[in-house]
């Protein structure tokens, strides 16, 4: 149901763009107005979310240590897993972000008769996520060639590398296939792994379908419907968009508007969705803090003023017992006589 709904939503979006862009005048909406709007929502929303997170303080240093902390000289410190300095934290975060180290650790547990529980390494999610994210990253970078004139040399290099395993002409990029495969694999995993299926929401299927559709329309344009679109006009529009002087030349092709519209939807959707994990991973206190809390005091800006049940109050309650059993006290017991008088 939930995944079916995601498909429906994406199909509806495609129809909107397809039919919409056929109406005279509408290319300006789909080609210029919506991209600007989407970009504004994306940038504004992204900054807003990050600022909102930043506004809440980090009252306690709650790093999770995944290895030996810094301790005595002869105990080997695991500098990546329990970082003690800023440089070590940066290294931990860097590897987390470029290699998905935590996912690499993943295991699969199984219950067997006995009962016996087994754990085995399970790197599928890691693999799928790596394929997906790196392909996505490369595709985004390659798109820069549309917006930049002249095209920087390093983009050409990346393209060359990406197309190294040449199949057919025009060259198929590995990352195009990777992006499609990544979406399909992650999507299938969601459907097939029973506990993941149980927790999945529309918001989990939708972005995958959306990105899949973006990739498909992109691939169609590049490899199959080359003649339907006018790449020179597209480049002109793209450069125009980034230089704030957009022009729409002659007929560009509906497939392009569909592609672009879906990208706009992704951009606008991004800041309000779980896709914000991109920014969140950098700010997660369990990972980006140092494990040096006993060596350097962490300050809580809202530290409430709370004092313990005082020693004085404690001694007042138990003084007699304390004196009787020879525990030192601050105030001696009052002389017996007074006490008797009080009672009279």
């Amino acid at each position, binding site marked *: 149901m939930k995944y079916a709904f995601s498909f429906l939503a994406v199909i509806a979006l495609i129809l909107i763009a397809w039919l919409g862009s056929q109406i005279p005048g509408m290319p300006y909406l789909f080609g210029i107005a919506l991209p600007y709007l989407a970009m504004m929502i994306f940038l504004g929303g992204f900054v807003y979310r990050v600022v909102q997170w930043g506004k809440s303080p980090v*009252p306690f240093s709650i790093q999770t240590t995944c290895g030996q902390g810094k301790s005595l000289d002869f105990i080997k410190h695991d500098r990546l897993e329990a970082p003690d300095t800023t440089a070590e934290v940066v290294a931990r975060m860097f590897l987390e972000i470029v290699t998905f180290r*935590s996912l690499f650790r993943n295991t699969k547990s199984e219950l067997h008769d006995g009962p016996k529980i087994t754990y085995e390494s399970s790197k599928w999610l890691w693999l799928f*996520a790596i394929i997906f994210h790196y392909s996505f990253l490369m595709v985004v970078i390659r798109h820069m060639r549309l917006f930049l004139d002249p095209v920087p040399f390093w983009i050409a290099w990346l393209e060359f590398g990406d197309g190294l395993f040449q199949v057919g002409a025009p060259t198929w990029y590995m990352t195009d296939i990777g992006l499609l495969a990544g979406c399909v694999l992650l999507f299938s995993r969601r459907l097939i792994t029973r*506990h993941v299926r149980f927790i999945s929401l529309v918001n989990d299927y939708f972005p995958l379908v959306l990105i899949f559709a973006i990739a498909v329309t992109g691939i169609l344009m590049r490899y199959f419907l080359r003649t339907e679109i006018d790449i020179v006009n597209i480049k002109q529009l793209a450069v125009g968009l980034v230089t704030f002087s957009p022009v729409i030349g002659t007929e560009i092709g509906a497939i392009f508007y569909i592609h672009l519209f879906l990208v706009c939807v992704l951009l606008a959707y991004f800041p309000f969705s779980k896709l914000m994990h991109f920014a969140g991973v950098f700010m997660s206190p369990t990972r980006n803090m140092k494990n040096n809390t006993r060596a350097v*005091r962490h300050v809580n800006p809202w530290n409430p003023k*709370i004092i313990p049940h005082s020693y004085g109050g404690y001694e007042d309650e138990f003084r007699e017992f304390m004196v009787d059993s020879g525990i*030192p006290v601050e105030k001696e017991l009052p002389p017996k006589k007074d006490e008797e008088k009080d009672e009279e």
Partner: protein
Amino acid sequence: MSVPKLEQLSQSVVQGPSLAAGAIPTRDWMDIPVKFTPGSYAYVAKKDKVEYLNSQSGLSFPNAREWSPEDDDWKLPEGWKEIILKGLQERLGKFRSLKIFMDCCVRCGACADKCHFFLGTGDPKNMPVLRAELLRSVYRNDFTLGGKILGRMVGAREMTVSVLKEWFMYSYQCTECRRCSIFCPYGIDTAEITMMLRELLHLVGIGINWILEPVSNSNRTGNHMGLQPHTFKDNVEFLVEDVESLTGVKPDISFNRKGAEILFITPSADVFAEPGLYTAMGYLLLFEAIGLDYTWSTYASEGGNFGLFTNNEAMKKLNAKMYAEAERLGVKYIIGGECGHMWRVVHQYMETMNGPADFLEKPVSPITGTVFENAASSKMVHISEFTADLIKHGKLKFDKSRNSHIKATFHDSCNPARAMGLIDEPRYILDHVVDWVEMPENTIREQTFCCGSGTGLNTDEIMELRMRAGLPRANAVKYVHEKHGVNMLSCVCAIDRATLTSLNDYWTPEVGVCGVTELVANAIVQEDETRGELEEGLRTMVF
């Protein structure tokens, strides 16, 4: 409420039907209401305990009353829903972790089968991600645009009484062990979510007695057992006598002594009940062997902090006694005994809450001269750090053969492992005092499995739950018992000493439980001692 027979439970865990055991749920989790039956929940806090706590400055534990989770009517206060939502809003503003954890989960499920409660109960709502969704769904509904517009379609739902009941059920089926956090690509720590849920529940008067009674005891008498000063002293003195009759050496001890160099604080359970007693005897013997100038305190006689399991205010109030007492007695620094969650508080919260500890001195071992740079600011040293350093400098003389009737393994307690990185110090110590082996690799160090009864859940009425949740740990113990003949599970945690004992009694009765310092003290050779020859298989601290 009695615990099922071993065979019965063993079957039920594997065959379910449950998600963990392979069954596929047919209904959306939001449509499955919770049902409270005897054994599925811990007894709720007694009215007088809640009233007492609520009367203490800085604390708020409202809505004291008689009630039971099995009742339909939980006697919630007027406007409870607004209280909860306001409480949530306030916490979103106070804890960045909460905001980020609410927003960033991609429901990838990497954390799902990492939780011992999920593995043992098979209940999908015990998957960390779903435990968090219990709160996240309400967050979406009231604090996000998408949730406000699209509602249930995007996983949002309104805060209702049945949601509240669900929170109670599942925030007390999480031991805040943080194992899930290790595997999450964003480090999402479901323990933080559980803490928030419990804080929110306390706002409307929902809490359990096994936690709130210890909190009130700790506040009043200084320790969670409720031992008054003279009783606490008596208990330790009994242990001194035991040590003397066992070894011929009488440890010199003092209480609340001003001018001592070091204040020693350990969980009070260690001076109260087996097998923790032996660890406490171990401390006495160890400190005597090196002639340490230290004092016990009856006012700060609890290392453990049950406040951690309620809200950050109670945690702070209880913890504040440690520094207050260290300052009053004029000691140089504090040594803390073996305890898991105590060290979470000491390592990650104490100085932030109750520091700066500028009235104390940077800890230096009086025996070896080692400066504990890693505790330079908070001025509290872990007993394993202290002991490992003594061993490294050859200050302790051991006869390892005294532990030769023991084949040990080591249980990393959740908090020292995942909230502190205290992993190799106890191992270094064990290497010197006992023959021991590791449990399987996915169940130790940072991947260690909880005893299943932490965070104040070691209460008898939920024994079946505890045995289920402890299964992953017990299973690893059983494995090394069968493979290597392990007969002793050592640990550095007082709660563990109590809970693992019940756990082993159930799953692997052949394996005992002990503290690392107990093994140290067993092996220590001292001048003037007159230890008898010990019979094979006898616990050496027992005479």
